[in-house]
């Protein structure tokens, strides 16, 4: 099996599992307990919080652990909306290519108007567009750091500067950026940031919300007061420990990562396939993601054939039934529907090899030829 879907999820690295093991076995105390067993677990959570804060350039008091990126996004948006609501500011600016956990939450904020901006044809949402959309009653701008389908890096620093000047909160879904690109929350001036452990070789089911110090996260889950009263529920100690260990390992490997070279090799190979279009080719992208569209191909059939050949890839996102939905991301970029039908996302990790990359190119080439040849016969 060749795994080329790292943007969907990644495997837990051995070092991460090792860091988690004590908390899955002997050190099982509840961090909220008074006794030594609880204290040991609480210490692990504290240490993890400090580690994450150091890596992201923020204070430990701004780090809140959640169940993952979706929860962090939900909480970030509700928090900003509550802040805005208190001042009578009920307008939010975001992007049409955001992850569904952002879009569906925005749809659900009662009494708020949301402007969804479209990126340019290369998939970049320019700061200019954001500036033009700001209104006196805007309370929040939410723009993801890296788009999960295209890998395109968004101009976060420029957008933050605008928000600072306008007194507007800035949230970024950094799920595809954390562990891949350097992040400096305080220096950049980001108010709210979401991340998810399983995207950088940590366990699934745990993430974090970074929320600036003088803003209190709006609790989604109420109860026992954990996470400083902002997220009830006994802490997922092994998960939290795993998240911190994984983030530390990933951040340490950003420089000198083999992934950019592997991706170049992949894209050079793919370019030779007739009727293939690279998405976001001319703009800065996160290292691992390659998004292409193949003419005259149905991506459902393509993914199944690749699956049968042992290549794990994806295209767009799945709806709740598991069927592929039309990519709202490609649509927002103005990619014609006919072309978007042939979309393919390959996302590499440091564990992929050159031989695997060559095999991926071969597989996609063969699948494309086979599906197109079949069409001509009919």
């Amino acid at each position: 099996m060749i795994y080329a879907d790292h943007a969907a999820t990644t495997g837990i690295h051995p070092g991460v599992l090792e860091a988690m093991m004590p908390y899955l076995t002997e050190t099982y105390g509840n961090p909220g307990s008074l006794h030594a067993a609880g204290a040991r677990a609480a210490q692990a959570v504290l240490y993890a919080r400090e580690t994450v804060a150091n890596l992201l350039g923020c204070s430990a008091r701004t780090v809140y652990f959640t169940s993952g990126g979706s929860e962090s996004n939900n909480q970030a948006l509700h928090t900003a909306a509550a802040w805005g609501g208190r001042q009578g500011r009920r307008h939010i600016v975001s992007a049409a290519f955001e992850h569904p956990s952002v879009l569906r939450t925005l749809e659900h904020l009662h009494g708020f108007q949301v402007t969804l901006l479209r990126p340019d044809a290369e998939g970049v949402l320019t700061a200019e567009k954001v500036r033009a959309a700001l209104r006196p009653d805007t309370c929040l701008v939410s723009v993801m750091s890296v788009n999960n389908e295209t890998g395109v890096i968004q101009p976060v620093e420029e957008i933050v500067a605008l928000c600072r000047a306008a007194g507007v909160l800035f949230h970024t879904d950094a799920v595809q950026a954390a562990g891949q690109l350097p992040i400096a929350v305080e220096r950049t001036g980001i108010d709210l940031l979401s991340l998810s452990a399983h995207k950088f070789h940590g366990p699934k089911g745990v993430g974090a919300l970074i929320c600036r110090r003088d803003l209190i996260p709006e609790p989604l889950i109420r109860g026992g007061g954990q996470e400083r009263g902002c997220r009830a529920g006994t802490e997922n100690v092994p998960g939290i420990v795993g998240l911190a260990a994984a983030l530390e390992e990933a951040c340490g490997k950003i420089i000198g990562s083999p992934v950019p070279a592997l991706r170049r090799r992949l894209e050079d190979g793919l370019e030779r396939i007739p009727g293939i279009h690279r998405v976001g080719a001319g703009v800065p992208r996160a290292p691992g993601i390659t998004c292409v569209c193949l003419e005259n191909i149905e991506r459902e059939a393509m993914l199944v054939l690749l699956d049968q050949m042992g290549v794990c890839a994806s295209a767009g996102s799945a709806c709740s039934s598991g069927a592929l939905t039309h990519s709202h991301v490609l649509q927002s970029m103005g990619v014609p529907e006919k072309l978007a039908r042939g979309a393919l996302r390959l996302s590499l990790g440091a564990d992929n090899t050159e031989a695997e990359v060559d095999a991926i190119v071969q597989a996609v080439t063969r699948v494309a030829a086979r599906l197109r040849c079949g069409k001509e016969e009919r």
Partner: protein
Amino acid sequence: MKKVMVAMSGGVDSSVAAFLLRQQGYDCIGVTMKLYDNTMQGQPKGHPCCTLDDVEDARSVAYRLGIPHYVFDFSEEFEKQVIHRFAEVYEHGGTPNPCIDCNRFLKFGSLLRRARELGCDAVATGHYARIAEAVDGRFALYKAVDARRDQSYVLYAMTQEQLAHTLLPLGALHKDEVRRIAAEQGFVNARKHDSQDICFVPDGDYINFLERYTGKKYPPGVILDTQGRVLGQHRGAIAYTIGQRRGLGLSMAEPVYVCGKCMKDNTVTVGPQEALLAHALTAEDWNWIICPPEKPFYAKARVRYHQAEQPAQVTLLPEGVHLAFEIPQRAAAPGQAVVLYQGDCVLGGGTIRSVQQHGIAE
């Protein structure tokens, strides 16, 4: 080992079909077709999909059987070939056949094409019917052994190509055997009810659905008798079908049936059984499974799904078939399917274009 794509709806029939094929040594891929978006049902986007339970049931059975399972989105094709047709036929006063259209264009159309693309030799479904190859290499379609469950009526439009690449593992089984197998295998859907309604209108409220789909309003109007006297009100002429007896909201001494409707005047006409009787009909969009003789011949016909076959004389027409019934037939509605049989064998079928009553052509 032959490779087959099993269409799994999440119901017990297609689940047992997959099981049997797996047992017989086929290399199976389970597929559930996503045919419509829940927004079609008037629910906001993001609402849990109504057929999620069905997909999960199919997936659960597939995992149990150790076969891969995929969900393919054919909603665009379904809207074009099934839903759109459904609305159009109702608008023109006919009775549509969405399940027959779905078989023709989706299951044995798009899905079969996808199956071939993915290297499968055939598709398989849980339909109760039998396919057999004759000595001359042609394929024939037969009724199921379980007469009460026989679904050959909805499969009449299958071409030779489609028949050649379709497996129907349940044709020789009785429904209670199928349920027994499902229970033995621990399938989650062993006791699930068979779906009765049209899948894309699960609440059965066709008028509401059509209004949402076409954007037009179908207001209530009058129900007339065959003399033009007003008997009561209808809830929207569009969804009434010829032969309909239930749901008229009339209390009459004798049972009455819908025997006509006029979309322009927004009226529905009802009459006694006699008003519905057809001596003959012409059908178009015909598919022959068996090569027909040139001269007129006798066969048995079904003009409704669960009907006992009726003797008829069959005459070939340039674009279809003319059937003359020995015994006048009730409720043969334009738009409905008519299927010809000889014994258990399906000769062919088509869509009723017009019906002749009392020897007078309509």
